[in-house]
């Protein structure tokens, strides 16, 4: 039997010091992050103020960006930013949540298990681990998409996606041109290639977070559903997905934020034309792309206008995040039902 002194002893001096130091360090860094965010916002607002005074709200409602005539307005960019992000979010969510379900609900493992069963290796000490390993490998591969640099996505879009979708787009425009979505012809960079690449870029965010929240659903809920006679699909759609919905929506909001701010790939793919069109094949422009394109050679006078545009982008992102947070609260509460 160890004595009382051996089991519990007061922390040594060095332990107490490191403890305090570590706490101070963490606190310091937390404040630093917050302060940096505030400084960035303040700097942008201060730099934008002269342009805000000069151009006012007309800046948000006009269609023309002409440095030669000193006429600046960004409605097409605001439209393009929101349109491309929403479209990418729809595509990205559909694929991302489906992939997360496939990976989290054991479909992959089941398929591999069935394959192993054919050769009767399903309980083999080495091969038997395969189902889980394949699942992990696939989810890692999807997360790897997030590691590809944006400019590589842009080049890939230019040289692979655009030539690939061109024939389909021509056909859609020629035969179904009366639908506004296909109203113009694709002539290289435009909304559709941008949306395709953007949705692939936000896919890892959605999949990773959705898979995490699906895995976090307690298995007793599933078991209970099965016990009540639910089929697998019924269990997924009536129990698992609603329970995980808060996490999934959180992932979607995060992905939307990323889509709004994505710069390089969009600057290369979206066509950078000040056009407001619902057509998927029309070139468009986004705020982030405009900033990336105009900043390098901007004269001091133009910088103020660009800062105004940056401020608008900041406000849009902020609004989306706040709205997203509220939506997560309400929808999740609704879907999860009453807490027992």
């Amino acid at each position, binding site marked *: 039997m160890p004595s009382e002194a051996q089991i519990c002893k007061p922390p040594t001096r060095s332990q107490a010091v490191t403890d305090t130091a570590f706490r101070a360090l963490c606190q310091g860094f937390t404040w630093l992050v917050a302060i940096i965010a505030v400084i960035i916002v303040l700097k942008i607002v201060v730099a934008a103020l002269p342009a805000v005074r000069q151009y006012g709200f007309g800046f948000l409602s006009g269609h023309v960006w002409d*440095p*030669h005539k000193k006429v600046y307005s960004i409605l097409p960019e605001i439209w393009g930013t929101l349109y491309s992000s929403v479209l990418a979010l729809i595509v990205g969510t559909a694929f991302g949540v489906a992939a997360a379900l496939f990976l989290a609900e054991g479909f992959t493992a089941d398929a591999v298990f069935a394959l192993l069963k054919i050769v009767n290796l399903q309980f083999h000490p080495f091969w038997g681990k395969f189902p889980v390993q394949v699942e992990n490998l696939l989810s890692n591969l999807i997360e790897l998409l997030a590691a590809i640099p944006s400019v590589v996505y842009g080049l890939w879009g*230019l040289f692979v996606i655009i030539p690939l979708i061109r024939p389909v787009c021509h056909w859609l425009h020629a035969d179904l041109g009366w639908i506004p979505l296909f109203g113009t012809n694709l002539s*290289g*960079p435009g909304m559709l290639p941008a949306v395709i690449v953007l949705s692939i870029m936000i896919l890892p965010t959605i999949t990773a977070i959705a898979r995490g929240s699906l895995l976090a659903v307690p298995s007793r809920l599933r078991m209970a559903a099965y016990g009540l006679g639910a089929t697998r699909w019924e269990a997924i759609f009536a129990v698992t997905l609603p329970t995980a919905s808060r996490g999934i929506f959180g992932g979607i909001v995060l992905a939307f934020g990323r889509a709004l701010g994505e710069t390089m790939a969009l600057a*290369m793919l979206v066509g950078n034309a000040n056009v407001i069109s619902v057509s998927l094949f029309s070139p468009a422009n986004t705020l982030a792309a405009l900033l990336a394109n105009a900043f390098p050679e*901007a004269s001091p006078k133009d910088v103020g206008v660009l800062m105004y545009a940056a401020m608008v982008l900041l406000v849009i992102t902020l609004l989306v995040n706040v709205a997203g947070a509220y939506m997560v609260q309400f929808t999740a509460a609704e879907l999860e039902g009453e807490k027992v």
Partner: protein
Amino acid sequence: MRIPGWSLAAAVLLATVGMISCQKAGPSAEGADVRLQGSGASFPFPIYSKWFKVYSQAHQNVEIDYQSTGSGSGVKSFIDKTVDFAASDKAMTPAEIGRVAAGVQLLPLTAGAIVLTYNVPGVKELKLSREAYVGIFLGRVKKWNDPAIVKTNPGVNLPGSVINVVVRADSSGTTFVFTQHLSAISKEFAASPGKNDMPAWPVGTRSKGNEGVTASVQTTPGSIGYIEYGYAMSQKMPMAQLENKSGQFIAPSTASGQAALATMNLPEDLIGWAPDPEVKDAYPIATFTWLLCYKKNPDPRKAEVLRDLASYILTDGQKESEALGYLPLPDAMATKVKAAVQNIQ
């Protein structure tokens, strides 16, 4: 989980040691006595970095940093005195020069041409009249078999497809020089969209950078776009022959570009443009790019290195330019610039 105190302390210690050793590594890497910092135009970046590399290899005590941040921000850093020299494709405006108390010496050290590259299946050679190429970029000439194009290309089978015009999306010196030329030859273009880094083009899809325009033209049949001569050469893109002021159709080349440069009579400040050269065998769109130096440098050693560097570039350095697709300065001009180098003190 409780992290043992000693491991945390060890981590902090390691990090500190790491930082200190990094700081130590800094100064030892720059054994250089003189270190020049520059930034600016991206168009001459490949040739500048080649020159600076060759020069600092030959002079062990000199280190030259050049960041291609764009002409606009180059001029800005030059006015703010955060650099030792800068570079600009647009030279400097008199107002900008007035803001530099130490005096400005602009040195045109190299030049380039802007070409129209196209992708029309089956068309190997294309001659464009002034009417045709201004019309294309104004959106008036819409199809490849427009009479304005057909007239100057007898025997060429031009398709009836729509011309897909590709322009630069980002603000750039290339666009500035190209629109300056178009404004010089067309009153309509001068009124709108006009001479600018990033004008409101009435037509076309926009791509980012030379590489973006090249990619769009390459992958979209029926397109035409403007890019730098050096870039077009390295990518082996087809280049259109353009009609110059004398009515000749001239293909872009070192010789025809130099002919255009030679028409410029450089004034005292060495800022000269040839928006529309008159000589018979001159390619119509060629331009200098400038190195910006202070006339009075606080550090005499830096001034000496700058003078020496400029002299090297104006003599042996010029031999490097052609391989990279730049235009070597005509001899008479190089002599004139060399004399101006002495103003850097």
